[in-house]
């Protein structure tokens, strides 16, 4: 491994996450403005020279309407970066924000680029999920041929196959809220979260809006199943055909043990050692490896395990070499399945809560998880961390980082 420059994460910031619906804390802010304000803050904190930015790579899962186009370039222009900051929009469904970081690392490790801003944005209140359509989910011919299933059905299938009952799912969800609330109370997010203001300078949102610290498995138990109706439409039959020995599909996922729909954005500064030194940036973490896989599209959401294995293989490491994990809480069954399959214990997973409590702003989440992981490694003194995310259509991706 000679001659390939290392890729370093030098800084990481994010917005708080606002409820992704009318009246949500960020619903009156254009997504491009969320990105532009974070860009300005990144510039302010790091002192980076805009003309040295080789690319702005942003995940965005509904890149249409006001979120359309390479939104990073629009944000750069909005900030007056006329002659600096190209932009690239990335869509890897729910892992787009993580894919942006992987791409940034690959650009830098190729030696062709030296400083890349990577992250993501999603205003789910203003550009609702599925605004960009998609043949896989919505074209009658194609979705039929691909045996498309809604993710919630797949999550219920994973829970049913894995013997996770409602109490387990709700227990994990309550823990997400507990850990997230404690993380906020203990200042774990203070460094990375940048409050969002309107253009008059008035504060709009300073804290993740969907955390309910008083959540318990008992309060969650009262919620109705979220995907039973979808299943009854016919999806249950498809799901059960793929699990011939499963007698019934339990619909135990609810709005309470699935990720919250939110708005938000996050940016990371990724640079080569030489560029970091030139600009006086302090590397906080080295990107060691990434892993990407396609897995069973009906089960759909167990890809994080294989993706993590591949990333670790590339890094020459095992699960025991990783101090902390961030496994996206798209549904409670996903991290529970990851733990069961890898023997990683709960106290090393999502220690500051996750998307069940704080929300999953699709294109931004991967970048948020990576930032949270760096903050946590620095705080706990851990050395290595791994982010893993499930993705629509059976994909999975993972990223391994090492604290400097």
């Amino acid at each position, binding site marked *: 491994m000679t001659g390939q420059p290392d890729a370093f994460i030098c800084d990481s910031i994010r917005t708080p996450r606002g409820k992704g619906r*009318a*009246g949500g804390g960020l*619903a*009156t802010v*254009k997504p491009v403005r969320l990105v532009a304000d974070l860009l300005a803050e990144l510039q302010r904190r790091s002192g980076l020279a805009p003309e040295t930015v080789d690319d702005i790579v942003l995940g965005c899962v509904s890149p*249409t*309407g*006001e979120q*359309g186009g390479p939104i990073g370039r629009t944000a750069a222009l909005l900030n007056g970066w006329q002659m600096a900051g190209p932009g690239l929009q990335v869509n890897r469904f729910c892992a787009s924000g993580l894919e942006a970081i992987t791409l940034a690392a690959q650009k830098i490790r190729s030696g062709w680029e030296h400083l890349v801003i990577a992250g993501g944005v999603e205003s789910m*209140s*203003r550009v609702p999920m599925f605004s960009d359509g998609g043949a896989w989910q919505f074209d009658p011919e194609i979705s039929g041929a691909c045996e498309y299933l809604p993710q919630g059905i797949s999550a219920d299938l994973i829970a049913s196959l894995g013997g996770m009952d409602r109490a387990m799912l709700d227990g994990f969800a309550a823990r997400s809220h507990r850990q997230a609330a404690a993380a906020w109370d203990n200042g774990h997010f203070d460094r990375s979260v940048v409050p969002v203001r*309107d*253009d*008059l*300078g*008035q504060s709009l949102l300073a804290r993740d809006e969907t955390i309910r610290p008083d959540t318990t498995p008992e309060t969650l138990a009262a919620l109705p199943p979220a995907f039973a109706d979808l299943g009854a439409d016919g999806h249950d039959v498809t799901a059960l055909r793929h699990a011939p020995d499963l007698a019934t599909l339990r619909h135990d996922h609810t709005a309470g043990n699935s990720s919250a729909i939110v708005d938000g954005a996050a940016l990371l500064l990724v640079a080569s050692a030489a560029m970091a030194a030139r600009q006086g940036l302090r590397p906080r973490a080295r990107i060691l490896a990434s892993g990407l896989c396609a897995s069973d599209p009906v089960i759909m959401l167990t890809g994080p395990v294989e993706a993590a294995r591949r990333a670790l293989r590339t890094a020459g490491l095992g699960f025991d070499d990783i101090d902390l994990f961030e496994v996206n809480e798209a549904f409670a069954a996903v991290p529970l399945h990851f733990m069961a399959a890898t023997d990683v214990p709960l106290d090393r997973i999502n220690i500051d809560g996750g998307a069940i409590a704080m929300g999953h702003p699709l294109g931004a989440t991967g970048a948020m998880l990576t930032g949270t992981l760096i903050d946590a490694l620095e705080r706990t003194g851990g050395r290595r961390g791994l982010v893993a995310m499930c993705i629509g259509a059976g994909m999975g991706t993972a990223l391994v980082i090492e604290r400097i």
Partner: protein
Amino acid sequence: MQSYFTETLNDDGLLTVALADPSGPVNRTTDRFKAELSALLDRLEAAPVRGVIFLSDRPTFGVGGDVDQIAALAATGPAGIFADSQRIKALFRRIERLGLPVVSLIEGLAVGGHFELALASHACFARDDDAIRLGFPECAVGLIPGAGGLVRCVHRLGLEASIPLIVEARLIPPARAAELGLITGLGPDRAALLAAARDWIAAHPAPHQPWDRKGHRVPGGGLFDRRDRYLSLQAKTAGLIATGGGRPCAERTALSGICEVAACGFADGEVIESRLFARQAISAEAEARIGLRLKDRSVLKRSGQALDQDLLQRLRQSLRDEAAALRARGLSAARIGKAARQAGYDPEVLDLAPDTATARPDAATLDLAEIGDRLLTAQSLPVLRDLVAGRLHSAALANSGPVNAAGFPAWTGGPLRWITARGPAAVLAQCRQWAAEASPGADHFTPPFATAAALQAALDRARDFDTEPETEQRG
């Protein structure tokens, strides 16, 4: 002091509220209006009546915000004006959610906040008279509707239909408003309007606005819901940018607000409208346009003053002198003309000879913004000189005279407002630099002031010229 609202509870359980602003002959949405509306709503929420009818016995229904109150609040910064905009919106929302019918009767001019009151009423009937005007004149004075009018217009009519009414500030007669669906109906006279209101109230004992019904959507949806819509609006935006010299302006703010509001929920739309209203209310643009369109005009109507011919001549000459000086430095007529247009001038007034093939391409160039500043400064200095020499005694005249008679760009609000907005110290320093660079004999940038403090003092004195004798009449 008399009250704004005169309430009459009729035998049939209808409360008639007659609007008569005690602070002047024309109804405005003053602080007193808001206070009395709030008190009325308190009473109605505690003790509902069968229905409420707003009307006015004055020739006009009302003209909305008091620009002096808006300016005073704006001077304290954006937070106060944002909060005030949210406050009147909250009052209008309480009207909509009273659970009993509220109807407005319009029998004269109803614009701005008073038209917004009518839109917040569950029904509105107007006298069918083509001399009456309804609508949103705010953009013409550098503001946007701030009492929920933009949001309600968009939620009633949709995005496209709102543009001429709000962005172009096009006032319409009642018949057109009824045709659009902005008001409920028409009647020939008070008796007919009252009868229509009574019938409507009887038929709608507990009305809801469309946006308070489940499943409501802005007709036609948001900007990005239709491809032909955002493609065609691109041209609209380009046109506003071109005519406005690229400067931010109320028309662009309003267009952007309409597009954004059309795509989000009602309450979010209200926040967006208040934010944009505050942005405009604190802008130099609003001060300039309100100053020229409303304040200067009323002062000059009273005083009858006009610029003397000598100053008028020098104002025109100063522009031509600077244009000639720029040509002499080797700048192309194309560049100077574009700069003039961008600054808001008609390039014709510069008397520029067309470029020839011999234009020096290596001449030291100036960017368009600096050339524009030079033209504006060159034309402001004759006004300052007359001010110092005691030949000008009216700030209204000093500002609007050059705009009306000598092509000084209206967006500035006139030479004195432009210098005030730029900052006297900056303007003076710039004059000195340009005067020092000028070729011998060219002294049109020599300022008539030695210090910025002296210039500021002159501007302050000028501001008092028109206000002192006026205090009595403002009352």
